[in-house]
């Protein structure tokens, strides 16, 4: 048997990204109260059930799924918001990898966004047509999906609006989503030239670039490279504050303990959405937004949490507070609490594994040195720290 816990349908959304905006709007449309933490310069607007917290820094997350307490700070004032779940949609970060590319920006070398901006300057038709523009993918490492799709779109625009010669250098042609494959086909159809390279020598001057490869040398007026992508600067700190994991590559890691669950953090009630946890083109981000809405609604849609069928239970009298379970639990479900109702005169301080945050993996029970933890049917577990009645409603801050 499982245990049920009624909860408020309140979700905290972190991030200033298009996916965060869509998740916040989508959840509001599904009837959730959405607390959206954005940067100070965001143009996000309050709505009836969409409350904006501008310029707030997320500092920590207490409690467990259904009864989270999120700590925010604007530098001087500390505030606490109650929420049932958290969606992290903080995105990724673009940069010019000067070291990896060993090509300084400027002159004939442009990044994809710079080229896109230049296309708005409208040079004369004759000037445009006389140009030969080289696009360079996979330079110093595989181009991620996120920027590859944008580079391919740029190639098609260059070809179909400037009518100039476009040569695309690559190591592995990108076809790994239906959308990217469609773009590759469109490039071919509109006359973009493709050239596979293994070793390539690039010489850039203000006047143009020379690309030397095994078949010969190609000179071009402009060389366009995609920017590189890395985890958003705050990711590691956020992960610590949220008590969730990042992968070896520095992005948020979906839970894959026993089961791989895309979009779910190891901590129950925390969700990842968009480019903070995946390398995705725009189409895949849209799909991921829908998946996030579905995941959140599967957890909270009924207005009650459902525990796992088997959960960990701590014998408070046996527990020696060694913190092994707190450190071991991959789901941040174990904590040290005070038990008041043990029948003894004094309170007992011991470990407690939350009934709804526990995923029943048994890691704590297996590692407990005094065998104080056993896996039991959820109906035999004794939940603690469950608020009576409806939890407090948070108030939005000014601004």
């Amino acid at each position, binding site marked *: 048997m499982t245990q049920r816990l009624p909860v408020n349908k309140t979700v905290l959304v972190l991030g200033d990204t298009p996916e965060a905006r869509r998740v916040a709007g*989508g959840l509001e449309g599904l009837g959730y109260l959405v607390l959206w933490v954005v940067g100070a310069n965001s143009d996000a607007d309050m709505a009836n059930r969409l409350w904006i917290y501008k310029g707030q820094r997320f500092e920590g997350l207490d409690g467990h799924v259904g009864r989270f307490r999120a700590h925010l700070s604007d530098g001087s004032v500390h505030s606490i918001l109650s929420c049932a779940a958290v969606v992290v949609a903080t995105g990724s970060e673009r940069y010019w990898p000067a070291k990896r590319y060993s090509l300084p920006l400027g002159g004939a070398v442009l990044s994809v966004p710079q080229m896109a901006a230049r296309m708005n300057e409208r040079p004369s038709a004759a000037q445009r047509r006389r140009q030969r523009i080289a696009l360079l993918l996979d330079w110093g490492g595989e*181009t991620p999906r996120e920027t590859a799709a944008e580079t391919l779109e740029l190639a098609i625009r260059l070809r179909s609006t400037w009518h100039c010669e476009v040569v695309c250098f690559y190591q592995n042609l990108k076809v790994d989503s239906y959308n990217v494959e469609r773009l590759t086909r469109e490039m071919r159809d509109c006359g973009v030239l493709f050239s596979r390279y293994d070793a390539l020598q690039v010489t850039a001057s203000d006047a143009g670039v020379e690309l030397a490869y095994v078949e010969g040398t190609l000179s071009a007026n402009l060389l366009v490279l995609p920017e590189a992508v890395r985890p958003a600067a705050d990711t590691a700190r956020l992960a610590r504050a949220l008590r969730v994991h990042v992968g070896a590559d520095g992005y948020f890691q979906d839970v894959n303990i026993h089961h*791989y669950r*895309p979009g779910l953090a190891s901590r129950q009630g925390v969700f990842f959405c968009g480019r903070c946890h995946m390398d995705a083109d725009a189409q895949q981000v849209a*799909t991921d937004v829908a998946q996030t809405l*579905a995941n959140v609604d599967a957890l909270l849609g009924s207005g009650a949490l459902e525990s796992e069928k088997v959960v960990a239970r701590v014998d408070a009298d046996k527990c020696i507070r060694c913190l092994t379970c707190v450190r071991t639990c991959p789901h941040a479900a174990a904590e040290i609490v005070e038990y008041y109702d043990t029948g003894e005169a004094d309170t007992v301080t011991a470990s407690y594994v939350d009934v709804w945050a526990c995923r029943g993996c048994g890691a704590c029970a297996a590692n407990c040195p005094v065998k104080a933890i056993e896996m039991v049917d959820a109906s035999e577990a004794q939940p603690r720290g469950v608020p009576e009645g409806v939890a407090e409603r948070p108030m939005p801050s000014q601004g």
Partner: protein
Amino acid sequence: MSTQVVVMGGGIAGLTVAINLAQRGIAVTLVEREATLGGNARTVCCKAVNGVCQLCGGCLLRDRIAQAQALSNIQVLTNSTVSRVGARHAMPLQIMLGDGTEIAADAVVLATGFDHIDARSKGPYGYGILPAVTTGEEMERRLSGEGQWIYDGLGLKKVAFIQCVGSRDEQAGRGYCSQVCCRYALRLARLLKQRIPDVQITIHKMDLQTSGRDICPTWEAARKEGLRVIAGLPAVIRRAPDRPTAVTFLYDDILAASITQETYDLVVLSTGIQPRADAAQVADLFGLDRDRYGFFATRVDECTTLVPGVFVAGCCAAPRSMAESVAHGQQAAEVCYDYLLATPGAPVAMPPQETQP
């Protein structure tokens, strides 16, 4: 009467759609043509290497079958097909099943899945004739509960994976990338290497697809473990003249600009995904268009079809991995739910109830 949705196909995508909608109180009829749920996802197995998850999604199926069976408002009809569909554009759609049952569906989600590309269609590769030629699908099946892993005792020294067998082949009518083969080949290569440490593994590829956080760590680990990658595919695979259990082929290494002959103990053909053989009939039943390769055509959101109230999920609309099929199923369910909410006079959804297992 509550809102009724028919989901066609009980594979990973169809199950995801059915669970999503049922949790929102919609009555779902899940029509599965086979005797058991799971579809092609049944043979996708865990590919963890040394206990470390490779994010293949093989574990995404089992819980979903249990979940679908536990929800009282999902009616699972196995061994069932749709034989007739009433007038299109007239809602609800009247759907007649093979056994004569009629259902009035407020919406239909097609999740009819895919067929594996038959490696025999690539005759010169000798699959089915040469015992040393197998397919990724077969290898995976031998890892799942449905088969037996037989490769450890064969004394394998050299193994080759051949990519794009039947995919990205316009002459075969399949100019598209199957999306899954590079990923499963890399994962299987690592798994094989873990079990047989002194084996040398080579991947013959056109364009290896290694971007994406689900496969990039596997790719980097495989390269560290000595995986050899060659840009060049064989034309014909033959029995090795000196060793009848081995096979040999010539390939054109296009980056080294050389033609080389090489002998392997085992060749794994990375076969991909193609539209189901009956996709044309299903498309005709519902009045759907198909794209140039035979997948169900969609609008730009990749879920909505040109027929109102008919949606698609999973590999019937385009090749997808396990995780992508789940995500697409969720997306299709969201789009379908929005459509139902926007339909005038949509009945109020009933809260779901769990039946006792």
